[in-house]
């Protein structure tokens, strides 16, 4: 429920901390290994979890997440299997907000109403559907809203002021700022530009703002955590799975998440700054 998301952001704000959002792909490299990773993400420092559900044609993703999706599909991944993972996760963890991230077609094929009900039952707090801009998202929003599941909207460097109004209309949960003009994980965000953009967005909305798409290294995550309410890392995390065999994948991913979350959580202490 969005309540979980709101509470998490409020708590962190009180502690003057940015949230660290860890992205992994459901069923990558296989169902059980993924669950093993998923259940340990909060302990490793993930304040919010973004769980990707695989799609054959991920047109907004760079090579890392593309490959993660292909590994997941090869191992039998699907939207339904993704929801199974969420159900199992919720049996252990009632507090960590979990957001599903993916593309329109699998959701459409399940049907908006069925998807909303299943997602609610499983314990999903929000959804990011990359290829569903505000112009097209009304039917899914309507299906999700009775279950208090947020449909997270995205803003990009190409989103001008006039368009921002459309993006912010009826938005909930948080705003996801796509920090680079490009696909996930391919280019590095320029911290100064992102900060300027965030200052601008904060004039327009009081919602928490998460920054993602161009963040890989702990130093970059740390720098962004000074201004952003949340920092999302995906590609650098799933690369740990790509670059290892199954037994060490769990450990490597969790180590990476720890490194990144420490950087985000301590960013403001080190700078001695308040936002």
């Amino acid at each position, binding site marked *: 429920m969005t309540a979980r998301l709101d509470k998490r952001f409020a708590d962190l704000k009180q502690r003057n901390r940015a949230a660290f959002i860890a992205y992994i792909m459901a069923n990558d490299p296989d169902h059980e290994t993924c669950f093993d990773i998923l259940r340990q993400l909060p302990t490793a420092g993930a304040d919010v979890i973004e769980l990707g559900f695989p799609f*054959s044609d991920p*047109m907004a993703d760079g090579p890392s997440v*593309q490959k993660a999706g292909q590994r997941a599909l090869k191992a039998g991944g699907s939207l339904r299997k993704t929801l199974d993972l969420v159900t199992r996760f919720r049996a252990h963890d009632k507090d960590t907000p979990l957001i599903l991230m993916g593309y329109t*077609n699998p959701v459409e094929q399940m049907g908006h109403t069925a998807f909303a009900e299943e997602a609610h039952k499983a314990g999903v707090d929000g959804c990011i559907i990359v*290829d569903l*801009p505000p112009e097209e998202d009304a039917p899914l929003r309507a299906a999700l809203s009775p279950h208090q599941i947020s449909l997270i909207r995205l803003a*990009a460097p190409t989103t001008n002021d006039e368009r921002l109004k459309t993006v912010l209309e009826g938005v909930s949960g948080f705003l996801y700022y*796509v920090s680079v003009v490009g696909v996930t994980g391919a280019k590095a965000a320029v911290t100064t530009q992102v900060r300027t953009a965030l200052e601008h967005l904060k004039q327009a909305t009081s919602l928490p703002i998460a920054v993602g798409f161009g963040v890989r290294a702990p130093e970059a995550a740390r720098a962004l955590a000074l201004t952003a309410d949340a920092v999302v890392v995906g590609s650098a995390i799933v690369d740990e799975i790509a670059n290892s065999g199954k037994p060490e994948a769990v450990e490597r991913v969790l180590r990476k998440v720890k490194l990144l979350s420490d950087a985000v959580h301590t960013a403001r202490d080190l700078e001695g700054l308040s936002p």
Partner: protein
Amino acid sequence: MDARRNWQDLPDERGRFGAYGGRYVAETLMPLVLDLEKAYRAAQADPAFQAQMDDFWTHYVGRPSPLYFAERLTEHFGGAKIYFKRDELNHTGAHKINNCLGQVLLAKRMGKTRIIAETGAGQHGVATATICARFGLPCVVFMGATDIERQKPNVFRMKLLGAEVRPVASGAATLKDAMNEALRDWVTNVHDTFYCIGTVAGPHPYPEMVRDFQSVIGREARAQILEREGRLPDAVMACVGGGSNAIGLFHAFLDDEDVKIYGVEAAGRGIDDRFEHSAAIRGGRPGVLHGNRTYLLQNADGQILEGHSISAGLDYPGVGPEHSYLNDIGRAKYLSATDDEALAAFQLCAKLEGILPALEPSHALARVGDIARELGPNGLIIMNLCGRGDKDVFTVADALGVKL
């Protein structure tokens, strides 16, 4: 069917053809897609834009293409008179150039300095590279690594024309992956790049814009048949992959309620749950891919399937959204032809008419006989012969077990 429907009004302002079409793209692309629409509206309203296009159509592409009475095929089938709209006689050998010319002229108007395109068989890539060479614009063509291997002559052709052919290894390394990669390039190079989509798919306004550029086919054919026969045809027919040549022919006839419209999809090795076909309408169901809602080959989870056709130009798991709509409301009927039927039609046309058709329109031709017999000797059919078959001789030889 709503007889008073004004077909020229479709799509609506949201880019919808009924339930199909739309703009399913990432937020980064949305402002660009909206800009493109604005620029296209301005170009449409500018007589100078149309005049420039007409001039190139006449002197560079070679329009109007002839409407040819296929007398011996007519005799062979023993039914309606069969006319070919000969878009295979265009410069570069197919209808693709009609659209590339329009889009590249629009890109220039918008001040874009770099053109990207996707290609499967290489026909759209060659046409885009051709127009880019003519206007001195750098051109990057995304092509699946598998297709590059299958279509070497076209790859070399594009290189001769100065284009960069970028192999796409992701996914199954075919047309849909090339399109994904082109979209990724566009999202990365939004400021200077124009994405020249090769068919009536993609986010709005592409399906409308590509249709408009291809509609010259039907406008010419309609005037030509009126002049030749003094009346409208009973049926118009075309093959449908993405469906740009088909919509190009159909569009001028949509309001002529007595003209039957037939699209022919690629049935590959047969339409069944092995999905060894590319018949999105006949063998798929609605979903969202590449920026629009339309019929797609997909599994129960919504994962897009590869499909198959002997004709690389029809080998796409989707279809233009306007075709999905025309199918649902019954204005057009979608048939199919298998690999083998297309091969037989290819050979028949070569022997009886002295024309090597591309394997794509060979699919349409494979169903022309049925419709010709159904209509009887007083009937009139126009089929879009949208490409020439020179590019396919290796594929055909291979299928016939002939070693070249």
